[in-house]
């Protein structure tokens, strides 16, 4: 008798081959048989009318902290994501000496917009080494985790404060190589680094003080293991992005490793840039290099309130500074001060075409409820003032708890994004799951792929879409035995309705430690999610208390001691 049999499903097996009708039997955590299955299962699922596919793999997330209080990475798992890759952009939560916890939390807060209070109230800091962190998150893990180790934290571990000031000495680079080896032995799937990010003091993150030789030395270690290098390039400029991908290509060729850079966006003002970047990607692949650009499926929407720094204001230094460094009382005081307000209004004028189109999405007072859902321009007309003054006034009245939405800010050309997503050398990813939790909901990018680009636009087949986010991702990242529905493979499986799968409406929920809130989206059309042979989530019963998530590739026993710095 099998442990679980999924009957009558339409199997989209992740290979890109045409879908077919079959039953799937599971024994333990693996797929035992695919075909017509007469034997019974201890549990049976009728998938009539549904697609049965491999679990989706999300290669660009920042669930590092959330995994400490939520081993399901909610709601990602409910969207069919069975494997996540945290630790991107040079930031992971290990290895980390106790004295640098505050520093790293500050960086996560600045770069990934994770609330400080969530770390304070949701995290028990009982690890320092990567291995200890892995041991920690394994408890109650319901989703598979393939963690990157961050270059910035490796530098901090070896160099201390000097990591934020200078290049490394030869001895320090050797020590970093040793630390990286230990992290890879402990289960890290690769290394991440960043060429753009700023820390909580708006200074470059430690990885940006590394010269090319240091990056190469670390890449040589990745080469020993055949593991991946992820980078954040200067994505705002095509020439810089091309220079970076050339650098990556040389590394990929020299050390025979896969590399990936993220993000790559389509915007109205850089259509030509995307073509140039992709031409270069094609050329480098033709040389035998592996330089995978990651492209997200969803358009860019940004929500914000003035209580926390927002990406939308990063090019307005006066605004960004008070949002970054001011307390709520100080920000309100700045808004009320006529001279400061005048300066802020003047600085904001560069975006005067944008402000009227923003929409008020949330307030606390009864008085202002009548404006919720209206554009800032409409509210300005109703109040007889300007859009920027509306935003400031409402924020004062709501003590900064007025939330605005800037919708469709880019990456919204169906034709251009659709063409990119199906490009054979584009890697679908860059969701940023677990990060930017007050700016946008990253959950449901996979549902949006099927709903918009497969079902509505017919830009790609369902087989191609499934392949892109399952077997291709597993192959790029070197994740064995996952990403395909084949006999002997690990049973990470999603059952969904191809006619209704989608992302739900973005909603504001309070489920972050420290009474924090975030934007999320519920899954639509997903029926059942299976991780390592166990039912992890169903639309009917929700999350299952029995957890089977694994750390991938996770090949060694927990090591207790890192290489001494």
């Amino acid at each position: 008798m099998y442990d679980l049999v999924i009957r009558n499903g339409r199997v989209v097996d992740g290979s890109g081959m045409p879908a077919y009708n079959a039953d799937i039997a599971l024994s333990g955590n693996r797929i035992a048989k695919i075909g017509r299955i007469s034997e019974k299962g201890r549990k049976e699922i009728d998938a009539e009318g549904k697609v049965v596919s491999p679990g989706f793999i999300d290669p660009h997330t920042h669930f590092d902290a959330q995994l400490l209080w939520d081993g399901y990475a909610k709601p990602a798992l409910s969207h069919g994501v069975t494997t996540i890759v945290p630790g991107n952009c040079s930031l992971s939560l290990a290895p980390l000496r106790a004295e640098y916890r505050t520093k790293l939390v500050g960086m996560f807060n600045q770069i990934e917009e994770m609330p400080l209070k969530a770390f304070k109230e949701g995290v028990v800091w009982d690890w320092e080494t990567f291995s200890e962190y892995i041991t920690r998150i394994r408890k109650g893990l319901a989703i598979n985790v393939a963690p990157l180790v961050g270059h910035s934290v490796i530098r901090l571990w070896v160099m201390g404060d000097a990591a934020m000031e200078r290049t490394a000495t030869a001895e320090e680079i050797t020590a970093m190589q040793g630390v990286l080896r230990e992290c890879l032995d402990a289960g890290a799937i690769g290394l991440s680094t960043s060429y753009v990010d700023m820390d909580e003091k708006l200074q470059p993150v430690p990885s940006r003080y590394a010269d090319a030789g240091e990056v190469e030395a670390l890449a040589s270690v990745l080469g020993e293991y055949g593991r991946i290098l992820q980078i954040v390039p200067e994505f705002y400029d095509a020439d810089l992005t091309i220079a970076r991908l050339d650098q990556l290509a040389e590394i990929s060729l020299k050390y025979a490793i896969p590399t990936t850079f993220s993000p790559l966006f389509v915007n109205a003002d850089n259509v030509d840039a995307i073509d140039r970047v992709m031409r270069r990607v094609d050329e480098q692949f033709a040389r035998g290099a592996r330089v995978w650009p990651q492209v997200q499926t969803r358009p860019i929407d940004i929500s914000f309130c003035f209580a926390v720094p927002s990406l939308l204001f990063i090019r307005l230094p006066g605004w960004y500074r008070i949002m970054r460094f001011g307390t709520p009382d100080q920000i309100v005081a700045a808004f009320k001060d006529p001279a400061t307000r005048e300066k802020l209004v003047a600085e904001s004028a560069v975006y005067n075409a944008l402000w009227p189109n923003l929409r008020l999405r949330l307030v606390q007072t009864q008085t202002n409820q009548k404006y919720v859902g209206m554009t800032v321009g409409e509210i300005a007309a109703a109040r007889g003032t300007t859009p920027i003054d509306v935003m400031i006034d409402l924020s004062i009245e709501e003590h900064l708890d007025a939330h605005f939405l800037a919708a469709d800010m880019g990456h919204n050309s169906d034709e251009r994004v659709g063409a990119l997503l199906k490009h054979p050398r584009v890697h679908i990813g860059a969701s940023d799951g677990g990060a930017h939790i007050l700016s946008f909901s990253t959950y449901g990018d996979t549902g949006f792929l099927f709903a918009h680009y497969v079902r509505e636009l017919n830009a790609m087949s369902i087989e191609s879409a499934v392949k892109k986010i399952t077997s291709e991702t597993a192959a790029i990242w070197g994740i064995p035995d996952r990403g395909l529905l084949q006999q002997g493979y690990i049973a990470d499986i999603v059952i969904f309705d191809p006619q209704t799968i989608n992302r739900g409406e973005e909603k504001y929920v309070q489920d972050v430690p420290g009474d924090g809130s975030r934007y999320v989206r519920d899954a639509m059309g997903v029926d059942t999610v299976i991780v390592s042979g166990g039912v992890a989530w169903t639309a009917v019963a929700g999350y299952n208390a029995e957890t089977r998530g694994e750390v991938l590739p996770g090949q060694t026993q927990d090591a207790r001691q890192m290489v001494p710095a």
Partner: protein
Amino acid sequence: MPAGELSQVRKSILPQHGDTWQSIAARMLAGVAEAEAVSKLQSWNLHVFMRASGAAGSVRGNNPILPSDVIFIEPPLAKS
């Protein structure tokens, strides 16, 4: 495809240890007067030139060039 057959892209370098505008100008734009060469480099690399200098007391001082930077040594190519 050999590296030599890659299409032409804007030329750039990665800094050497301790590089400044002046040292890069001397190395990459030899033959151009220093002030002019530095000025050209700065105009081709606004992503570095416009960056705030290091924090007070930092080793980097007022040199905005980071060891990881891409530094262009020619202007943007004309659109083909």
